[in-house]
């Protein structure tokens, strides 16, 4: 009972800390809104909107007919909303197979990454006085810097010899292996802040390592787990280089490779290609809207603490 109460207490503490750190930016005060502020705001809006122009072009193209895309007025609004592009694009691109492959790879890979990285980070931190465990922290740090090109060909050859090219599960394992060092690093930074007293209490009550980890430590890691999930989803969903090396058959193709093929094939139908692009951005965009605060936190955790 006692350790349960402590757990809840710490969770509240951590949540409050997190709240304080996110709410730090000061609110706008009424006396500050005058001409200068308006001008400066306008200036910042213009700059940021410049960054969004490519999306505007994409959306405008997706609603135009093919003839309209050739009129040399790429920024103009479509004369009428031509919705057929989307149905034709989805039909023609056959992106649904690639979409399911990407979804499968992303979900599997993310789950694996969370499980593997949290476990290894936990044991590295808790046994840091043991040299055998402590050294892995440095090995993983060095591995973050390793360019993929250095291991690309031997890895390709090994997979080829094992007959694991064009295998979605092998692809997932490779992605997990490549993403692991970075995510372990993010987790290590966070596990260090988890108080050890809770685990000691649990162990005295007879909890083994596994139960202690999954029932007490892992729930406390939730904020950073969300971050790792978001970063892994982005990394695997958008991966191009590894998929390019490992996957050639259309049956196991992931979305970026399929997009590339579709765009190359339909380059004279810009409206269709644009519609296909929008359709394949949407899922990740929706995820972003719901989880954006974790993205920001995660990059900071990985970059500044690392």
């Amino acid at each position: 009972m006692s350790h349960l109460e402590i757990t809840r207490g710490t969770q509240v503490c951590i949540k409050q800390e997190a709240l304080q750190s996110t709410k730090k930016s000061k609110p706008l005060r009424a006396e500050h809104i005058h001409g200068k502020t308006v001008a400066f705001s306008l200036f910042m809006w213009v700059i940021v909107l410049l960054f969004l122009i490519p999306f505007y072009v994409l959306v405008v193209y997706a609603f135009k007919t093919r003839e309209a895309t050739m009129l040399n007025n790429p920024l103009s609004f479509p004369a009428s909303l031509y919705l057929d592009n989307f149905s034709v694009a989805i039909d023609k691109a056959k992106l649904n197979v690639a979409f399911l492959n990407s979804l499968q790879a992303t979900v599997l890979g993310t789950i694996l990454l969370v499980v593997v990285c949290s476990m290894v980070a936990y044991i590295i931190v808790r046994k840091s006085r043991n040299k055998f465990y402590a050294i892995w922290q440095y090995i993983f740090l060095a591995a973050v810097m390793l360019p993929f090109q250095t291991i690309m060909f031997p890895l390709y050859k090994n997979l080829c010899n094992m007959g694991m090219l064009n295998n979605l599960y092998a692809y997932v394992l490779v992605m997990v292996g490549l993403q692991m060092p970075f995510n372990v690093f993010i987790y290590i930074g966070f596990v260090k802040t988890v108080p050890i007293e809770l685990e000691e209490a649990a162990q005295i009550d007879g909890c083994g390592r596994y139960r202690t980890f999954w029932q007490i430590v892992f729930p406390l890691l939730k904020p950073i787990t969300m971050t790792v999930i978001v970063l892994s989803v982005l990394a695997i969903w958008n991966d191009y280089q590894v998929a390019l090396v490992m996957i050639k058959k259309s049956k196991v193709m992931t979305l970026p490779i399929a997009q590339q093929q579709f765009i190359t094939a339909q380059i004279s139908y810009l409206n269709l290609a644009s519609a296909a692009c929008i359709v394949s951005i949407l899922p990740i965009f929706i995820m972003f809207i719901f989880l954006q605060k974790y993205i920001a936190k995660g990059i900071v955790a990985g970059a500044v603490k690392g």
Partner: protein
Amino acid sequence: MGCTFHRKVHPSTEFHVLYVWKEKPMKMRKFRHKLIDFTFLIPALILFFGVMAIPFFQGFGIAFTNWDGFSATYDVTGIKNFLDLFHDTQVYTAASNTLVYTLITCVGVNFLAIAIAVGLDGNVVGKRFLKSAMFVPIITSLVIAAFMWNRIYGEVFPTYLGIPSPLTFTAQVIPGISLVCLWRDTGLAMVIYNAGLQSIPEDMKEAARIDGANSLQIFRHITFPMLAPAFTTCVTLWLGYGIKVFDYPYVIVSGGMAKAATTLGVFVYRTFFTNNKAGYGQMAALVLLVIVVIVTSMTTRLLRRREVEA
């Protein structure tokens, strides 16, 4: 008397229980615990060795041979591959392209990210929306980014600005690719600088303002020094990204201009999979690794020292 009886029996039973429980199978239990702890490491080790460590060491075996990547036989040629790199004009093109790309993106991303992060830290209406909007480019896949920018360069630039697409000129193709990277990565760097800005105490700036410092002086003497750790991280990160870059030039430029847009990363890839020179490519990849390690570790050390001084 009842009291003493209680005191005598209760601790002794507990002691007894502990004694039996702990002493006898101590060694076995300790070993079992160690084994259980080790299982936490096993999945990570399997993945690490399978995906990274073993291929990494195999790479050294390939780099000193003239293997083409698929034949059963090959000769060990020693450091010939290494020397050949210096006589290859393609390597020089790739190296200078990589240098230009890395300089533009590293300077540009950090400059833009600091400017926009500091700008959005001030009194701006709707800054939370703007901060989120800055991040949207990074969530789009590079393939789509390349498609969008081909529209911008190919159609918007000539129509509205009267500038032909930079991707059609040998001299402008790398700056053109760099601009896409600036567009996509600035939001990412901005998030890191944002965190640095949050850690600056507001009263410090307030005090400087009361003492008569203008915005520029505050930025020069307070904001920028306080951003030093984030600056170190970002510069090192984007130097590394720049030197290793493969996907930006590979995806954005296709066809005839692809040769002019070759970076070291693309050169390694083509040597492996188009030219079938595995030994040579692996040597180039190892040289790339050495460059990345030297450049990033030197910048980190240099910038960390500056942090301390500031």
